[in-house]
């Protein structure tokens, strides 16, 4: 979808929401809106797109109590604000919108979280990502390093960038709006997405990208939307395998899940943000055992999180059940940098080649 098409679609759907409220009130009805329930109990696997999306459960918000009415009022103000922004071809960050709402009297936001949540609601109802509202998040995306060439439409004109030759040793920074990137060419065999900066740097320093023709993506913990969109686009444009390499603890598995299947918070955008073909590389609970890695004991919270994952539909595969149950049994977790205990080259010379061969990637 081009930028113009997206803007047209977003304007149309916003006006459609406002019109439906207008018509409701004109008919003497209390304005209302229905939204899918946003919990893990209401996400379903979509066979055609192979991602997890919101299910049929909906909750109705009717302006019959002060709380719900205020929610609708805030939504109306945001719609008015976005409409103005689109008309004037301007954009703002979520944080800026939060500050702008200071002037909205009764409709002003109590906290930034509230405005973020409301924007997600609007994305769901309008089926337009927030880039279409000219709203972008505060945080910048993570970095990428590897044999690929892109063209980015920046505010200072078009730039062609090779992600090994034209960048510093930290790599190319993924912009907020990935839609402005054109994927020109590549010489890669696969993509490895890494949770920690330490491992990302280790792989670059050891020349892993050149030796194996790998694109390295630093996720920076729980990946931002732009990072996930980037992975989604690389995967779909060039049809490259995407492998996710994180720490070996329950919180890191959720990082993988949000890359591969989408996050519960943004299940409405899964088709754009998730990379269904992404595979989990490690660190697997079985690696802790097989490589006898230095490890920590699982805390109560960790065990709780692991048990929660056993009921999460995104983890309901044989592979995950086996790994999670094994981890609970071991009672241990390890960080990906624990491989350093076997020497700095161990991860690039031994572990990754072995694991990638196992997975049939090389």
């Amino acid at each position, binding site marked *: 979808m081009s930028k113009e098409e997206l803007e047209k679609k977003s304007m149309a759907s916003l006006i459609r929401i*406002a019109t439906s*409220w207008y018509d409701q*009130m004109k008919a003497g009805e209390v*304005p209302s809106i229905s939204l899918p329930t946003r919990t893990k109990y209401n996400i379903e696997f979509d066979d055609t797109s192979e991602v997890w999306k919101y299910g049929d459960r909906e909750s109705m918000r009717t302006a*019959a*109590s*002060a709380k719900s*009415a205020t929610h609708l009022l805030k939504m*109306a103000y945001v719609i008015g604000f976005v409409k103005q922004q689109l008309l004037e071809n301007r954009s703002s960050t979520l944080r800026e919108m939060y500050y702008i709402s200071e002037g909205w009297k*009764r409709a002003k936001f109590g906290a930034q979280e509230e405005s973020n949540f409301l924007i997600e609601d609007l994305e769901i109802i309008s089926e337009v990502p927030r880039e279409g509202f000219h709203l972008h998040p505060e945080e910048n995306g993570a970095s990428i390093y590897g044999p690929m060439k892109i063209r980015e439409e920046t505010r200072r004109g078009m730039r062609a960038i090779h992600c090994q030759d034209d960048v510093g040793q930290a790599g190319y920074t993924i912009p907020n709006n990935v839609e402005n990137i054109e994927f020109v060419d590549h010489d890669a065999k696969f993509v490895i997405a890494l949770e920690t900066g330490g491992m990302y740097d280790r792989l670059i320093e050891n020349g892993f990208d050149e030796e194996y023709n790998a694109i390295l993506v630093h996720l920076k913990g729980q990946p931002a939307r732009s990072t996930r969109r980037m992975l989604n686009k690389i995967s779909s444009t060039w049809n490259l395998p995407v492998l996710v390499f994180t720490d070996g603890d329950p919180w890191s598995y959720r990082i993988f899940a949000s890359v591969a299947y989408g996050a519960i918070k943004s299940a409405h955008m899964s088709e754009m943000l998730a990379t269904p073909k992404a595979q989990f590389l490690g660190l697997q609970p079985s690696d802790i055992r097989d490589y006898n890695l230095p490890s920590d004991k699982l805390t109560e919270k960790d065990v709780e999180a692991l048990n929660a994952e056993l009921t999460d539909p995104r983890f309901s595969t044989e592979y995950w059940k086996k790994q999670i149950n094994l981890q609970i049994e071991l009672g241990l977790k390890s960080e990906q940098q624990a491989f350093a205990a076997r020497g700095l080259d161990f991860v690039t010379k031994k572990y990754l080649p072995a694991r990638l061969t196992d997975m049939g990637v090389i």
Partner: protein
Amino acid sequence: MVLADELAKQQRSISVAEFFEKNKHLLGFDSPTRGVITTIKEAVDNALDACEEAQVLPDIFISIKKISNEIFRIIVEDNGPGIVPAQVPFVFGKLLYGSRFHQIRQSRGQQGIGISAAVLYAQLTSGIPTIVISRTGPKESAYKCEIQIKIETNEPDIVSEQPFEWDRIHGTRVQIEFKSTMSAKKKLLEYLKYTSIVNPHARFRVELDDEAFTFDRVSHEIITCPVAIQPHPHGIEFGQLKRMAEASNAKLSDFLVESFSRVGKKIALDICERAGLTSTVKVKGLTAVQLKALLGAMQAVTVPAPPTTQCLSPIGEELIRRGLDKEFHMDFVAARTRPSSVFSGHPFMVEAAIGYGGKLPVEGNAIVLRFANRVPLMYQQGACAITSCISNVNWKSYNISQQALPMGPILILVHVASTNVPFTSESKDAIASIPEIEKEIVLALQDLGRDLKLFVSRRDKNKVAEDRARAVCAIIPEIAAKVSEIVEKPLVDTSPIEGKLMRKLIAKKWTRDGKVTIELSNYTTHEGEIAIYDISYDNATDAFPKADFVSELDGQFTKVWKAIIPPQTAWQVSYTGKGGGLLEIRGIDDNKKMVVDLDV
């Protein structure tokens, strides 16, 4: 010499004064901080009791001043009947001397230990004699004396005495100086506050060093002094019976009828028969064995409960509410005075009150105020039967959270009045666990719990209705304005939604561009005349339509309009002003109207 002789040399009687010198904690003088509170408590108790007996409204002045490093001067002055000079040394200088010990009626002080214990404490810590000034009436001159206690003999030691020029017509003033600290200041003020709640007819003026406080009276009714009653056959012990019998010249049946309450001829004969004694025998000559049989018979026979109305003096539901209202500002107060009852022959009565909301702290345990015979109990809350009763009530069934004590913005007051309050110890801090009393406390609290539940649920219901009114009358019009602007269509009218949802007479007030508008929309079938009261700082001289009546008080204007608003129509007034204030609608049922200030 045998050992027993040795020991006999050391064996001698101990004076009460000597005993208490070594056991100060029994009387509430275990620490210097507590000493202040106990002293003031005893003096105030005496003052209130005296005023009650003299039927005057108590005016009590209390002063605490630091004299030197550790010595504090405490003065308590009342407008009671005064004490005749001959009695003063005994009242203040002899432990266990008092007028109320042998009487069966509700009174604050009972044993006559309290104030003389303070005199003793002063003597022990500072060595300064206590100064008492008292005057019994306008014709008598006041009398001043300095007193100490002879510890070995428990007799008063008058250091000096002389007539005194005093501006009070009647009353008593005590000045005691002892070693203490002011770290209990908060507790002291709390004690006075609580005392003032259960003595709504009294006024207290307090000077703490340089600070002055007043706890004013809310009632000008002099409380009737409880009248002493005769002992009840069920509430008597052997020693007392023996003493009474020895002092009597009557025949047994007459003795029973005359000396005990609720004993008539028939019951007297029944007792004689059960005891195996003839009714005509002189009681004076009865042997110990016979008296024991008599006591057994008295306790076994069924006797109506003792009369309670004259010997007890409950505060009353109305005065408890007013007393609490004065010191705590709460949204809800309810009080209960239970019917009087009896334990082991002693009449007693339970009063309780519950307060909710307002300025009470929202977090933590409920505030518990315990009283016995109108005296606040300040210590040993955990050991008191009142506390355990409060914890034993299932507050959760009244929608109040509970962790032993109920939690939240709640205040609980319990007052136990009796001719003989059963305390756990002589310092009179906690009420002993007596099943009859506990049962009455729990019943009173459960009753109050139901009242509170009703209040809270009504308030919540109103909250939901108000919440809805706010949504419909204030927020939906704003949604309409914004949405109409977005879709670029004429402003959609939301009054049909209002009518459909509310079915009420809705009064709205709003301020825009320096103009105040009040609009009443009648969505009911009501047709009568409505009065609109608008109280604010706006004088509304340019109102259209003109107000039917305007009055001013302290810069606030009350504007009244009268209007007939037929069903499904609206009425409007506007004037120049800033808005705010209060809007009230009269002439229509409360549940058929709703007032919404759109500026809030």
